């Protein structure tokens, strides 16, 4: 954070940090040109934000001790700190009135907030399209529905319920990529054998892959496919397996 002296058109320089009260920091700045000084005073929330960074404003004057922030931040009295911010606001801003009693008009919403019940966050969420009613104005492109043959549907239904959505999505992605409009048993089988990278394995290469212990096979498959894809290939043959093997040996 920097401050500009508009009179001298220059950055004010950081001078020092003081702790005028518990939970408050006073950060002092001075204009190097006109020597005007001012202090920015933080409330407990802002103070905690700065403390949470684990840094010291103005830089370190002595070496940090191990786990300095962690140890310094731990509260010894578990009841302390509760309601500190509300108390601060009550005393400093609301003039001793309960924070909730502040008139709504005193916090007039900025532009774009008015239709969200005055909450600045709801306006922001709506703008980002994250809320339940904040769907993006750009509708997602329609995805053509695929037909599933009864036997394919039956096969899908036999899988454990919690893996069905993932299998369905995977098969349909393969079917769309391959230009199928109907998912048959054959399409399901083919999708299982098809690489997610769009790379095919020859039977001989597949057999060599099967020699690898099962727990290591998925990682090996991904790595070999990556190597082949890097070379611009689309089919994994026994020769390519040999190349991959030589490459792995170089890393040993």
């Amino acid at each position: 954070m920097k401050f500009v002296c508009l009179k001298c058109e220059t950055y004010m320089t950081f001078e020092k940090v003081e702790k005028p009260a518990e939970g408050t920091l006073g950060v002092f700045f001075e204009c190097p040109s006109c020597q005007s000084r001012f202090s920015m005073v933080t409330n407990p929330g802002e103070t905690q934000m700065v403390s949470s960074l684990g840094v010291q404003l103005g830089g370190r004057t002595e070496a940090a001790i191990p786990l300095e922030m962690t140890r310094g931040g731990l509260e010894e009295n578990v009841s302390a700190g509760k309601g500190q911010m509300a108390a601060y606001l009550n005393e400093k801003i609301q003039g001793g009135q309960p924070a909730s009693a502040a008139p709504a008009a005193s916090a007039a919403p900025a532009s774009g907030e008015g239709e969200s019940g005055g909450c600045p966050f709801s306006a922001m969420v709506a703008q980002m399209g994250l809320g339940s009613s904040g769907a993006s104005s750009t509708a997602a492109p329609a995805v053509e529905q695929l037909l599933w043959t009864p036997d394919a549907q039956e096969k899908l239904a036999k899988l454990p319920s919690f893996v069905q959505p993932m299998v369905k999505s995977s098969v349909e992605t393969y079917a769309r990529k391959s230009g199928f409009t109907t998912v048959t048993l054959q399409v399901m089988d083919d999708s299982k054998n098809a690489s997610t990278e769009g790379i095919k394995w020859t039977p001989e290469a597949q057999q060599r892959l099967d020699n690898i212990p099962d727990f290591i096979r998925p990682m090996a498959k991904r790595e070999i496919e990556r190597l082949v894809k890097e070379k611009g290939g689309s089919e994994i043959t026994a020769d390519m397996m040999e190349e991959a093997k030589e490459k792995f040996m170089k890393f040993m």
Partner: protein
Amino acid sequence: MNQQKDLKEILNTLQYTDDAKVVEQISVHTKRVIMRMKGIRRKVVVMSGKGGVGKSMTTVNLALALARMGQRVGLLDVDINGPCVPQMLGMRGKGLLDTAEGAVPPTGPLGIKVASMDFLLQDNAPVRWKGPMDLSPVWLGLTEMNVIREFLSDMVWGELDYLLADLPPGAAADKPPLLVGLIPDLAGAVVVTTPSEVASNVVQKSIAYAQELGIGILGVVENMSEYRCPSCGDTNPLFEGDTESMCEVLGLPLLGRIPFDRNFARTFDKGEPILDGDNPTVAKYQDIAKKIHTLLDYQQVLTGKL
């Protein structure tokens, strides 16, 4: 509007300097973590996304198993709010030793070095941070992130073959990105689940999230796969889920299945961990540790098997 334009013109003529030195200090923090991690050969996180599946039990037993294999092992208990690793390893009451180089973690069974928030807390005191609790959602995440960063940067691990990090439950939301940011050469993640469908659903999401972040998933450990009767030794399934199918669909290896063993669990609760490699549950963890070790040496395996 004019005032904004004037300010823009003024700023165009000024040279920015970081007087408060915040950016500089944050950069120093990151560099310190990287420097600390240099002596560690393999960094592995144990995660789930679902609470209560036995991440800590898995982490502790994998650490013991790797140590049994002659590996130099460190264990970082990243569960800041519910640290339990020291208790499981019978290390409560031990502390970090402050030195000029940093905090030296105490050594537990089989020479495992352990760092945990528990070492900074008194008895059963909860973790409470200074600051306005009514605004804690604003700063708490940042505080916890920097606590983890300090545990990574300030701990004198020395030379290690493995550093295992036991992530807290619900870690999918914040800890993996943080760890990836702090440890660029993370070897991968071991995912723990139970065969219950609820756990599997949540775990699948955290796997997808971790993969999006570029974290390699080494495999899945199915915990509480069955119940071993402490009287007769018979085993029966506890849930009706199917972790094997999930792993097949996700293209991940199922590293192993661990039964729920009441006697086994009780020893860790009491801080008297079973170290005997002949124990059937210990043997299962040993098998998983061997697989992880092999997975991380997969290039060597491939040259022999391809």
